[in-house]
């Protein structure tokens, strides 16, 4: 009767030891996913920082390292060079890449709305500025703007920039593209007045095409299907948590911002987080859906194909995991 508890304890010890070893082995088996958001640290990527900081990735059994790209080095270059395994891309960018022969898989779609706007200088209506010098990101967003310029016969003269606020404020540009969650607020912060007149929102003019999603190469996906899925699920959990705890999420964002010495501030990041979270809610279902919408893919594909930005229509099925 006396040594029975000791026996039980021995069994428990063994069990614990076995479980620990198995766990470690499992973790070691999964390679580290290097995840590169397509811009410098900011609230646009709050969900991923949250997932990392709150341990959602660890809990999902994936090891993730977040490495940012820079304003002059596009994230896709890092994917191509195998410097990272996952990256965020805008839908149009992803379609361009697929058309260019790089096979990608959208493992998580966060954006449900288009955030791009044109802000024009001197309070003018962007639609009246034929041939204007308009700033566009050198890293390759803005495909829809090019389509619109052609379609509406505005013949904008595109100026590729790394950073647009100073050029715009100095009067070197007639108008500039901006993201409603980022440059739009930067311009406001620089004292540019936003009116209903000088801001053109693409989402309100038939160009409501989804933007940010997380992509991996199809190659990688085929080999690490389970890992990719876990990464996507944990990321989604990160976003959902951020939506419920925006201030705490903002704390986490500021930690990344400060680490990278990004010249921004909490007020700006709060505005950005709020706007990014808003863009994640589908206009029709009013829900955070985290899915690619075939209709939006089709719309983007048609627009870009029509304007010779794609050599062919890129199908919805080419973007998602299961062909």
């Amino acid at each position, binding site marked *: 009767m006396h040594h029975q508890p000791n026996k039980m304890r021995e069994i428990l010890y063994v069990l614990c030891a076995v479980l620990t070893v198995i766990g470690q082995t499992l973790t070691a088996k999964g390679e580290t996913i290097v995840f590169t958001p397509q811009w410098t640290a900011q609230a646009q990527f709050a969900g991923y920082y949250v997932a990392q900081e709150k341990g959602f990735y660890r809990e999902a059994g994936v090891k993730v390292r977040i490495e940012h790209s820079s304003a002059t080095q596009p994230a896709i270059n890092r994917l191509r060079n195998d410097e990272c395994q996952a990256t965020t891309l805008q839908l149009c960018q992803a379609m361009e890449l697929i058309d260019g022969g790089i096979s990608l898989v959208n493992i998580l779609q966060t954006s449900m709305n288009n955030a791009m706007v044109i802000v024009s200088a001197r309070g003018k209506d962007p639609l009246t500025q034929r041939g204007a010098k308009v700033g566009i990101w050198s890293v390759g967003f803005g495909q829809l703007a090019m389509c619109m310029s052609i379609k509406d016969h505005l013949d904008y003269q595109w100026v*590729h*920039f790394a950073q647009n606020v*100073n*050029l715009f404020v100095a009067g*070197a540009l007639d108008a500039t593209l901006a993201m409603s969650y980022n440059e739009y607020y930067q311009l406001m912060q*620089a*004292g540019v007045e936003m009116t209903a007149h000088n801001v053109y929102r693409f989402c309100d003019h038939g160009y409501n095409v989804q933007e940010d999603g997380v992509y991996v190469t199809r190659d990688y996906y085929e080999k690490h299907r389970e890992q990719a899925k876990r990464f996507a699920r944990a990321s989604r959990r990160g976003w959902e948590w951020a939506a419920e705890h925006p201030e705490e999420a903002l704390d986490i964002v500021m930690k990344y911002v400060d680490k990278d010495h990004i*010249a921004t501030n909490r007020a700006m990041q709060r505005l950005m987080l709020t706007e990014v979270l808003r863009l994640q809610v589908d206009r029709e279902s009013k829900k955070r859906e985290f899915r690619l919408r075939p209709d939006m893919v089709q719309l983007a594909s048609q627009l870009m194909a029509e304007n010779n930005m794609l050599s062919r229509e890129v199908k919805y099925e080419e973007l998602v995991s299961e062909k």
Partner: protein
Amino acid sequence: MKDVKNIIRRKLSVRVSLWVVLFAAIIFNIALGFFFYQAREAVRQEAINRATQTLDKTSLFVEGILNRVEVATDMTEWLVQRHPDVADSMFVYSRGMLLNNPDFYNCSIAFEPYYFKDKGLYFSAYSKYIGDSIRTIQGGSDKYQYFYTDWYLMPTLLDHPCWTEPYMDLDAPTNTSEMVTSYCKAMKDEEGKIIGVINTSLSISWLSQTISAVKPYPNSYSIMIGRGGTYFVHPDSTKITRQTIFTHTFEEPDTALTALGHAMQRGEEGIKLMHMGGQKCYVFYKPLGKTGCSMAIVCPESDIFGGFDRLRQSVRIIVLVGLLLMLFFFIRIITSELSPLHRLAQEAKTIASGQFDTKLPELQRIDEIGQLSNSFADMQQSLVKYIEELKNTTAQKASIESDLRIASSIQMTMLPKKYPPYPERDDINIYGQLVSAKEVGGDLFDFFMRDEKLFFCIGDVSGKGVPASLVMAVTRTLFRAIAVHESLPDHIVTDMNETMSANNESDMFVTLFIGVLDMLTGRMRYCNAGHDAPILIGSGAGLLPCDSNIPVGVMQGWKYTLQETTIDPWTTIFLYTDGLTEAEDKDHAQFQEKRIFDVISHVPNEPKQIIEAMTQAVHQFVGEAEQSDDLTMLALQYKHQQQDIRYQRSMTLPNDIQTVPKLSEFVEKVCEAADIDMGTCMQMNLAIEEAVVNVMNYAYPKGVKGMVNIDATISDKGLKFVISDNGVPFDPTAKEDVDTSLSAEERGIGGLGIHLIRQIMDSINYEYVEGRNVLTLLKRLKVKD
């Protein structure tokens, strides 16, 4: 609070001091206010000058350095343009730039993509100081695509050289970053096509330090913002490059800050007074050369005006303390100056309480207070004297008043007081009343009964008081004295007038009404000497017609007229003095006759009730007003009733004494009918005989034949003999009672006879009616059991 108010109200010293201090405070306030305003303006101007100078100095300093960069860049561009196709020489030029200008941060000579065919996409000759040595490399790469940078794009897009917004320059090989601003100039080929950009950078850490060091006041600080409003200099280092001047307004809208930001962005120069960081600050701002940056010095108002405010506070305290001291000393001084007044007030109080011999304080002062004290002493002496006199006067007055009271009571005793005056008579009812305005009055009324005639009078002496009362007494006495033997009112009045006007040195007179009412017939003879006409109250009411005679005592020898009327039974004769008609209320309206008739019409026809109702009406009318005149009223009600005649007999005799036995027989028969005892019958016979013989002897002149009628009636009132003749009028009753102490020879004819008649008969009455002498003799009959 109430106590303070009370003190202010009670203390002259406090009040005067408060006024003085109040005026002083107003003057001080105005003067100091003006001074402070001027001083504050001066301090403000000084602060503006100081800040402006600092800004100008900094601006000039920056300008100087910027000019050097611009000149050096122009020189280099000139060199590049000489050999634009020799790529490697660009390294030499960029290096040369730094060699010549060791304070420059770096220099890039960057070209359009693929400008040098053999150099590929990127070519940028980039030199930078590393310690003391210069490192020159090719700067473009996939990681640093310079042609998308601000410094490359800006001069090409703007088409003129320009300074970029300050930015963090990351030196990739050393991984160091530095805040720089660059002067960029685009290079063009002969066709005007841009071939590249020369960029010369300056570290602005020195500029930051220079500007941060600008601190004209202990708590002031400087800021510098770029074109986009970004802070490049700010005391809070966390804001530098991370926030713009507008960031704060996102969370807390601040129109003043927004306006400042826009003004600085536009490169304006100026001063703004606004709230910064919770305090009021002056912000002086000015653009920094061509960099697009703007600098501002923020000076808290408390710093600028700190010394001034402290000075102002000190002056205020000094003035306040001074005013309080002033108030204190003023109250003390004035109180001490006014202390004699206080003592005088105390003494005055003592004097007022009746101690007139109180000793006043002696003051050795010749000012107003001294004069007041002297006047007060004089007044005290006068007062003592006056009070003494007053005491005597009062004593005298009391004595006079006592006399007057006695006089009044004496006067009242002269008036009839007993009502009804003739309780045994049922043919007359009288009531009279006199209310004097003063202790003694000049009104009178009187009545008495003689020989079945009621003599009555009412009068009003001119003037009031003691003289009038004396005249009244004289009048009443004369009336009584004359009426005793004179039955005609005009004779009575005439006699009275003669007596009174004879020695009337005081010119006093009396209005008088005298009436004589025959009780048997109701005939009234009367004479009115200037008095109000009486009112007759019967089935109706009306004034008794009166002749206009002058009052008694005015003129000697005046013939007063006689008037006559018959008073119907149950008629009341209401007599009054002008004290009734002329009674005044407080508005000096008079009572007047109309009201008398009003009262009469509402009152039962009874003397006492009429007078009482009239008295009440007058009191009501007069109300609170003082009684202006004596008020006298007399009411007489004649109630003659037809007698129940049981027996009547008459006879006529000639004026011949021989017929007297017939008379005796007649009388005896009458007495027998009246059941009168023998003794009385004999006495009556004697009396009748005396009266008839008297007529026979004297009524007709000698030798003239005349008749004398004797009527006898027996009624329940008694036995009545009426002896009448148509001889000369002669009133035997007007003879004074005979003095029986005299001998028969000494006494006048007839006198003894009348005396006899009076003794025997109960009443005797003479009337002259329609040319006949009528003498009525009445003997009351004893009622048999």
